[in-house]
């Protein structure tokens, strides 16, 4: 069993599915001989050929549309947007077709495609390369939105995404692509697509997050332990459909909740979680739910991008506020 990074786990899952399912095809810009700008498809074209791993012309709307066309005719395309910042021309095809063909045709057609994109800030990338706009996709009826936060979850969730008969937007937190390694067995075992993962048990406060922010959140949980506060950490993983049961159960135990996301604050996925807590968990809460988020600004260029992103200190402050309020 090998220790691998998150991006290597993505690669391993892709290779596994291409090898085991002749309908799986990868397409995107520079996914072929270059192996993707983050090396997520490194070696795959050499291994599986250029009709399984296809370099496309530079046109995102086309990539999405071609994938949808292929998917509706029985293939299982895994399309790549090189960065989330370039995914927007694809939204037309996703909303107009991928998300609704099943419903429009009363189930006669379906769109078993995956759209992968690296996202998020913190790697000193150029303009347009650092935003977190997962909420845009979570707002679209008819798609699933999945965000892994560890190598093993990347492997299992990507397998599940490819096998899922509906369109899945699979967003990869690039800041933690190579942050740490984990043992992942290439056993083809997928993970459920409708479930949060409890990363750490705790009794005093529930910290809810996903993607790269799991790093700062776990760091905050460590620091809280030293303060004598026991934090439960939940990685939402699939932000749509949202597994509120796990979150509600945790809040029932802790009575406190802080939601952490890198994305802009207004109408972020944190707002949905907070709303559902208000609807279904209000009487379990000892204090108002708090959010630690990016600001409602354009993600700044890299000189001050760190100031935009929620820090461990900001998470600790929010938790301490919540503890004081109750």
């Amino acid at each position: 069993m090998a220790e691998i990074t998150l991006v290597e786990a993505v690669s391993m899952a892709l290779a596994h599915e291409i090898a085991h399912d002749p309908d799986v095809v990868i397409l995107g810009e520079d996914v072929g001989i270059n192996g993707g700008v983050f090396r997520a498809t490194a070696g795959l074209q050499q291994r599986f050929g250029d009709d399984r791993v296809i370099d496309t012309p530079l046109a995102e709307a086309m990539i999405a549309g071609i994938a949808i066309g292929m998917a509706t005719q029985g293939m299982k395309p895994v399309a790549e947007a090189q960065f989330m910042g370039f995914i927007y021309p694809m939204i037309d095809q996703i909303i107009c077709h991928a998300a609704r063909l099943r419903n429009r045709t009363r189930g006669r057609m379906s769109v078993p495609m995956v759209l992968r994109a690296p996202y998020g800030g913190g790697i000193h990338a150029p303009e347009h390369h650092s935003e977190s706009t997962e909420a845009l996709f979570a707002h679209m009826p008819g798609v699933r939105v999945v965000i892994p936060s560890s190598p093993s979850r990347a492997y299992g969730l990507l397998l599940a995404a490819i096998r899922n008969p509906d369109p899945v937007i699979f967003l990869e937190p690039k800041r933690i692509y190579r942050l740490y390694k984990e043992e992942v067995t290439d056993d083809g075992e997928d993970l459920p697509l409708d479930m949060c993962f409890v990363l750490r048990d705790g009794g005093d406060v529930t910290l809810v997050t996903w993607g790269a922010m799991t790093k700062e959140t776990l760091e905050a949980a460590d620091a809280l332990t030293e303060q004598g506060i026991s934090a439960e950490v939940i990685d939402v993983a699939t932000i749509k459909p949202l597994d509120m049961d796990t979150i509600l159960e945790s809040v029932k135990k802790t009575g406190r909740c802080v939601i952490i996301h890198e994305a802009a604050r207004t109408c972020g996925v944190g707002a949905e979680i907070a709303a559902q807590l208000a609807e279904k968990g209000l009487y379990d809460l000892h204090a108002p739910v708090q959010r630690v988020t990016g600001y409602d600004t354009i993600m700044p260029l890299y000189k001050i991008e760190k100031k935009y992103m929620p820090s461990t200190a900001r998470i600790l402050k929010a938790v301490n506020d919540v503890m004081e309020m109750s």
Partner: protein
Amino acid sequence: MKTIASFEIKYYQFLDEHGKPVIENMPALASDLDQLTQLYKTMTQVRIFDDKAIKLQRTGKLGTYASSLGHEAIHVGMGSAMKHEDVLAPMYREYGAMMCRGVKMSEILTYWGGNEEGSNFSGPAHDYPICVPIATQCMLASGSAMAFKLRKQPRVAVTIVGDGGSSKGDFLEALNAAGAWQLPVVFVIANNQWAISVPRKKQSGAQTLAQKGLAAGLPSVQVDGNDIVAVRWAMDTAIKRAREGKGASVIECITYRLSDHTTADDASRYRPTDEVEDAWKLEPLIRLKAYLKDQGVWSDDQQTELETECASAVEDAVTEYMNTPIPAITEMFDHMYDELPHDLAQQRAFALETENG
């Protein structure tokens, strides 16, 4: 059966790779040696700037940087053909064009150094900043041209897209709009043979990229993009046409991306080195220098002097860049709207408070 339309794409080159005129009747620019010398100086300045920027990136003093190496004739050809009141909508490596427009080297470094202040540059206030989302700038150019047309201003929008970008709807839609409305815009295609790792032949089944302009009803030519005389001739023709209200044009400039795609790329993974070596023989500075020497207006001493001057200007720019203050946290809020909305004002106050502990 009858032919109802037929088309051709002409290719123009005036100076060959050795700097020799390829025809007798050269464009006027070929005998304007003062201007050619000036263009050569600007191209050299860009080349030396570019080399320094890569070194800054390699030593951790600059973020990811997109080199303009090999594209100097296209960029300087574009920028130098424009009037101040015209509008430039660049992509992300046209430093030669931006510098002709008055953008300072320090400002270009500030941009790639991760500071928005670099886009608040000394060039014309109506020029667009660097544009990363491929081909989207083409729409801005057509939109600008629409404004010029409706307001009856004799101004021209100039934009540039790569061979890769020419596959994107934004480019094709911008061309179509310009053709449908006879807009005063010039579309330059910098065909440098590669879109990161994707070669030109995988980008499009079309024999030339220029012919995409024909489909929009635009006069379209292909030129040797390493020959500034050809680039300028095509630019001058297209800009004049646009300014006279006769509509848009497309100029496909054939060149080669001599560098990695950006400093974040390693082209040796996907590109044969002999191809790059061959391309070096065609690069734009060698031939222009040879031509100027043949004309008796350039010497090795002048070359040495120029290089020293350019290097010193670059050093000054680097100093200015390195002394540019890191933006305050408030900067990310203060330029979002004309007037800061109340909710953002609260977030701004919170950000300041948390930053100060």
